[in-house]
């Protein structure tokens, strides 16, 4: 049985059917062990690179941790955590992260759902339009951050040219150097790049609504708005929750676009929790403090995850 050796199986393999007929000991052991053997590689990766780091993070957060060899790392108890609550930048960063979530998530979802409703199968070239809406999702954050920086460049950027055209005189708005215009650019970029993701999930969800249900509602003469309220939205509630949860978790770790466009400036005014955590760890080498910040954020988001698991479970895996 060369094909079995090719697949890395032991040569004496018998089918489970044969095993149950004879039920000899090695076969029973094999059958019990099989699922664990199948799980082993994934579990091992998961344990080493995800579970252990979670433990390690909590561990470090109680120390004044340095990474320099030979440096002492004194135990400081909860003081890293108490410091978080008096750190003014944490307040700004929390506010910015919160604002980022409540602004970008609903807008992405609204546009994504709208696009999914419009770009139906019946639309000529629907495949092309759908692909076009999704393409920004696969692009690199570094690349598109700089494309947007360039569009919003202060000296002769195309956005200033557009604004100048309508204003009737040349303008030199330094978009990415002022807090609120910079936030605006970051939000706009994130919405632009994110829409395609909720779009495909909603597309699949709308596709899953039984056609008869929609047809009967429409032939009853119900206006489109009512069909949406009473048939469409209830049918895709699962998808709406799924998208909300995953977008919020994604938005809570907004990093690259801020790191590339403003580096958190001017004066920390555009920091998010992730960019601030990163700066504390890898620029200031305050590993313990940054770990405490990360742990706290993880706990908050995990509360959110409880909801997520309940939702996914209700979806009948």
């Amino acid at each position: 049985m060369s094909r079995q050796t090719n697949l890395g199986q032991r040569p004496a393999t018998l089918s489970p059917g044969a095993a149950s007929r004879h039920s000899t000991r090695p076969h029973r052991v094999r059958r019990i062990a099989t699922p664990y053997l199948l799980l082993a590689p994934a579990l091992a990766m998961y344990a080493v690179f995800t579970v252990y780091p979670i433990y390690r993070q909590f561990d470090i957060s109680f120390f004044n941790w340095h990474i320099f060899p030979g440096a002492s790392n004194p135990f400081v108890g909860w003081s890293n955590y108490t410091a978080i609550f008096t750190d003014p930048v944490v307040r700004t960063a929390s506010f910015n992260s919160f604002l980022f979530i409540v602004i970008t998530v609903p807008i992405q979802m609204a546009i994504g759902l709208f696009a999914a409703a419009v770009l139906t199968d019946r639309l000529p070239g629907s495949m092309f339009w759908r692909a076009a809406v999704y393409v920004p999702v696969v692009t690199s954050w570094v690349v598109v951050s700089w494309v947007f920086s360039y569009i919003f460049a202060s000296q002769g950027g195309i956005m200033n040219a557009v604004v100048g055209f309508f204003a009737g005189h040349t303008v030199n708005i330094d978009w990415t150097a002022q807090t609120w215009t910079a936030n605006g650019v970051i939000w706009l970029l994130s919405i632009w790049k994110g829409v395609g993701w909720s779009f495909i999930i909603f597309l699949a969800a709308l596709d899953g609504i039984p056609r008869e249900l929609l047809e009967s509602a429409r032939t009853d003469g119900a206006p489109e708005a009512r069909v949406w309220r009473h048939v469409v939205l209830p049918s895709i509630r699962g998808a709406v929750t799924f998208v909300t949860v995953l977008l919020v978790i994604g938005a809570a770790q907004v990093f690259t676009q801020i790191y590339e466009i403003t580096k958190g400036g001017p004066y920390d005014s555009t920091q998010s929790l992730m960019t601030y955590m990163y700066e504390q760890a890898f620029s200031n080498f305050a590993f313990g403090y940054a770990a405490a910040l990360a742990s706290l954020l993880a706990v908050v988001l995990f509360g959110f995850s409880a909801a997520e698991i309940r939702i996914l479970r209700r979806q009948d895996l």
Partner: protein
Amino acid sequence: MAIAIETDEAKAAAPLAGTGPGLFGIRKRNRSRMVIAVVLALLSLGPLLYMLSLSFQPNGGLLGATVLIPTHPTIQNYVQAWTENSFSHYFVNSLFVAIATVAITVVFASLAAFAFARYRFPLKELIFYIFLASLAVPNLLLLIPQFLLMDRLHLLNSLVGLVLLYVASNLPFTIFLLRGFFEAIPREYEESFRLEGAGTLRVLVSLIVPLSLPAVAVVSMFIFSASWDEFPIALTMINSASNYTLPVGLADFIGVHTIEWGPFFAASVIATVPVIVVFLISLRWFRSGVSLGAIR
């Protein structure tokens, strides 16, 4: 091919729609939809087409160029990015990382998903939910302990180390998606395979995975683009230019040569084309892959 399927579906749906073909075969309701479709496509592709256009403009007059179509197109930026600025090197690194991540993740996740889909064993659901729970812990939050772990394993500044972290972060979602797909495959198919004496791995390789091709293809595309584009982890773990992936190389380039927009955008196009190609290839499986897996 995918387009052909779509039109067939549209034809099949036409009698149900009730309205006859309007002007140019476009039904009346479709005309306003068409306008919206064009606007959405322009907004989505606009910034990328602008980048493409910039990459062909002569480097000197770049900043301040509001010319959307280059008057004197040149490929000089590409030549410079590829040869002088070692983007060819970063490209190869990114390709290695993305392909290795996809391959290892798909293999490990298929094995695990098969165990969840087909076997009963103690603690099964608990283990599954432990995997799922990590979807809620943003993996960026683990940057610090992962950095210390990589340091200890002597995997800092190593592409292999990067692959291991990417695999670990992509496993839960992939297992979740594939489990749903595997469970949808009728057990009877498997029985006949088993009766012929096929072992577990053979059933998986020759039956389950081929039947789940849409999900495997789509999830491979997700993983490919996620690891190709990944920035913060690579930025943290990789510290020598010879091991840069494209995003880190691009970010470093902009820091060092602030004015060289031409080669930067050329390199950006080089960094963007492969993910778009992979996405377009995966399109034909997209429909069934997403709808059956993510929100069945």
